[in-house]
């Protein structure tokens, strides 16, 4: 009798735990998924699935969670709290219980492909203080020569947050209505100002704070060397350890003159389509200090005065070949500009050195739509155009 009582009692406890905390929540979640999921969330492709397996195999989930909790700090840092339907293709789930690196629930749209690959290949080449393991065995000896495995991981990373983004505000609205959840939960899951709150996510447009002209230079140098130098190089020459795998290459800051406005926008919004992340998580005075350092890389040189006929030639070449993208007034707002993933250079806020300008015309800018012009233009035309674009720069407004 006591055998029976103990046996039934013991097994009953276990069964109860499985029912109460496994099966029953599963039923509730199933209902909720049915009500809140978009009709046809995108399943993973073969490559994305393989990437998921590698992600699991290398222990990524043991430093990066994939669940944004229903908490203000999580939502502020990463975005809207994770809904049950967002992980329905995860066999097994990759929620994770430890964060050494940031949560990756919405990583898909945060970083560019070349950044992700370079970061997988050699994390500290981009983020100097990172402790992430390097995964060189997924590559053919260089960050821009990924093996299929690295491409699979990249493909998988790009799916993170994809379905929620595709569902759009309409999907969220529908989910909010049919979600059987408390007001608090609704606030965290749907009330977040941004689906993806990552401060590093680059955006092509967006308001940005005006940085002050009086940054603390010493603090700036410290910030620059820990955050920027890995790509732009310690002297701003665009040759940091992370530069090799990035297309386009990081800007050579010493060859360009930037307005304050341009620097403010680049630091706050990042370089959409390029590996340049946004730095919205740094304080304004820190960004000002960094901008100060960047301005210091450029040494002003006496500008040659050019004969009028050269300028005329440059103007004609520019109007015929460059204005579609770079705009009639060099503001990077030509009629074709919107078609490109990377915005054409705005020459009003950024002046390349003559050498840099010529180099871009001769060789193009790898990784951007800017193609070499040597086939179309004569040497004289190239030089004239290279001079001409520099004339758009208007400096800082007084």
């Amino acid at each position, binding site marked *: 009798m*006591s*055998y029976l009582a*103990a046996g039934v*009692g*013991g*097994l009953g406890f*276990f069964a*109860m*735990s499985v029912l*109460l*905390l*496994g099966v*029953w*929540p*599963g039923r*509730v*979640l199933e209902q*909720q*998924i049915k009500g809140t999921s978009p009709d046809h969330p995108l399943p993973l492709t073969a490559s994305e699935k393989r990437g998921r397996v590698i*992600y699991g*195999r*290398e*222990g*990524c989930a*043991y430093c990066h*969670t994939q*669940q944004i*909790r*229903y*908490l203000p*700090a*999580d939502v502020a*840092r990463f975005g809207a709290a994770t*809904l*049950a339907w*967002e*992980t329905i293709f995860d*066999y*097994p*789930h*990759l*929620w994770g*219980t*430890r*964060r*050494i690196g940031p949560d990756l629930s919405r990583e898909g749209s945060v970083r560019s492909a070349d950044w992700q690959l370079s970061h997988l290949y050699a994390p*500290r080449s981009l*983020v100097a*203080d*990172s*402790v992430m*393991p*390097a*995964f060189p*065995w997924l590559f053919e000896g260089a960050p821009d020569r990924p093996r299929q495995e690295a491409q699979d991981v990249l493909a998988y990373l790009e799916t993170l947050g994809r379905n929620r983004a595709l569902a759009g505000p309409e999907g969220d609205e529908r989910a909010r209505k049919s979600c059987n959840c*408390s007001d608090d*939960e609704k606030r965290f899951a749907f009330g977040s100002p941004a689906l993806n709150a990552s401060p590093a996510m680059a955006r092509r447009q967006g308001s940005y704070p005006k940085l002050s002209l009086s940054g603390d230079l010493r603090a700036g140098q410290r910030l620059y060397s820990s955050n920027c130098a890995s790509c732009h190089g310690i002297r701003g020459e665009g040759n940091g350890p992370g530069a090799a795998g990035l297309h386009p290459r990081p800007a050579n800051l010493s060859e360009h003159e930037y307005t304050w406005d341009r620097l403010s926008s680049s630091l706050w919004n990042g370089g959409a389509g390029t590996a340049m992340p946004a*730095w919205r*998580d*740094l304080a304004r005075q820190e960004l000002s200090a960094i901008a100060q350092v960047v301005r210091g890389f450029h040494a002003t040189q006496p500008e040659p005065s050019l004969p009028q006929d050269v300028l005329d030639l440059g103007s004609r070449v520019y109007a015929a070949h460059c204005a579609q993208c770079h705009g009639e007034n060099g503001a990077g707002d030509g009629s074709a500009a919107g078609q490109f993933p990377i915005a054409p250079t705005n020459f009003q806020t950024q002046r390349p050195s003559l050498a840099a300008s010529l180099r871009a015309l001769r060789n193009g800018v790898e990784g951007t739509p800017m193609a070499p012009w040597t086939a179309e233009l004569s040497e004289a035309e190239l030089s004239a155009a290279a001079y001409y674009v520099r004339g758009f720069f208007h400096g800082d407004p007084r």
Partner: protein
Amino acid sequence: MSAARPASPPIESRLVYAHGLAALVTLLISVAFGILASIKLIAPDVAGNSAWLTWGRLRYDHTQGIMLGWLANAFFAFLYHAVPLLTGRPVTSARLGQWIFGLWNFAVVAPGWVLVLAGFSQPLEWAEFPLVIDAFVVLALLLLGIQFLPPFFSRGLEDLYVSSWYIIGALVFTLLAYPMGNFVPELVPGARGAAFSGLWIHDAIGLFVTPLAVAILYFVVPAATRKPIFSHFLSMLAFWLLFFLYPLNGTHHYIFSVIPMSAQIGAITASTLLGVDVIINVANLLLSLRGSGFFPRDIGLRFVGTSAVLYLIVSIQGSVQAQMSVNQSVHFSDWVIGHSHLAMLGFASFAAAGGLIHAWQRIPWARYDAKLLGWSYWLLLAGLTIMVLDLTAAGLVEAHWWQSTAPWIESVRAVKPFWLIRTLTFVPITAGFLALLCGLVVGPRGGGLKAIQKSIGLEPIQEIAPKLASSSTGRP
């Protein structure tokens, strides 16, 4: 429990010895995995960037090795010693024991490690060995049931001592919980799978490690002090509470997640009550230890006594960190890593070491060096204390940065010094475990029996006489 017991129940000493050695060897390997993983957090490119030694795979092997290599083997060694004594009957078969030993170490632990390093694993906590290994684990668990359960069932349950209950509970429930944690999340996706995963994360500790460790505590305390435990009633109360509450804890790993709030709150409630249960259990153990001093001379008892205290601390900590207000900031941080080391390196490893030493002392032909084992105790206690305090502080620092708006990398920068200290604790911890190994394989044969005599004041007269002489003359 002594009335019905035959004079000398047959103990398979060779299996105690084999599992004990396997435990210590797999322990040192698992510790090596842990050290390397911890070094890689402060110097990520150390030891090259080869796939086989990448951080993730080392971490998988570290925790799986500690649970399935070290603790499991040590527990099995203890079972071969304790089950015949508890039941007065031999285990089912020595031959079967050899099979289990081979299966466990050469079809589970060793190939599991290699497969994980080679890139075959599953990304589920406490279930990282690949599915093929899980099949062997389940088979071995079945065989362990056949090996150890029949001796209990040949007696009436009314006669069972609390350690027997824990042993039966652990063997039966692990067999049920293991497949749930290892197979279900592969079949049930996302949030629903995570609910099961959460259950297993806690069941691995609560239904496998804890019951066997507590079985050791309740076995060694009366056996080494030669006094009955304080209260059998309390021991049984705590036993049933534990098996009622522990399985209900799992969801506390996913608080503030999308798993239904009522399940989360249920798990938090169970976690809180579990603290109460452990207070009862440890109070009973410590009351049973009255008169033995804080650091008993018997090293096995000393490990076991400290294990009970650590069990209390880690359980209260667990109850506290399951509370929403605490969990929201310390979850995901090194605080939890400190907690798990307090549980596994503290409570469970001290119990396992105590049980192993206790069993070793009673193998007449086994070598035994009490001095080295004493060193082992102090080194491990020191290493553990520094590591847990350090990681707890690191967790608070991380929590602070995560609550702020500072860039993520600031939290990483801020804890690097803590990680350095954590890595340095490998010195006392490795030394302590080496001393444990050496204490059990060097020294005179039969040294254990002498140590028992010494600890209970039965020193041979020729050893006592000089001491008496010196104390009477006032010289040291």
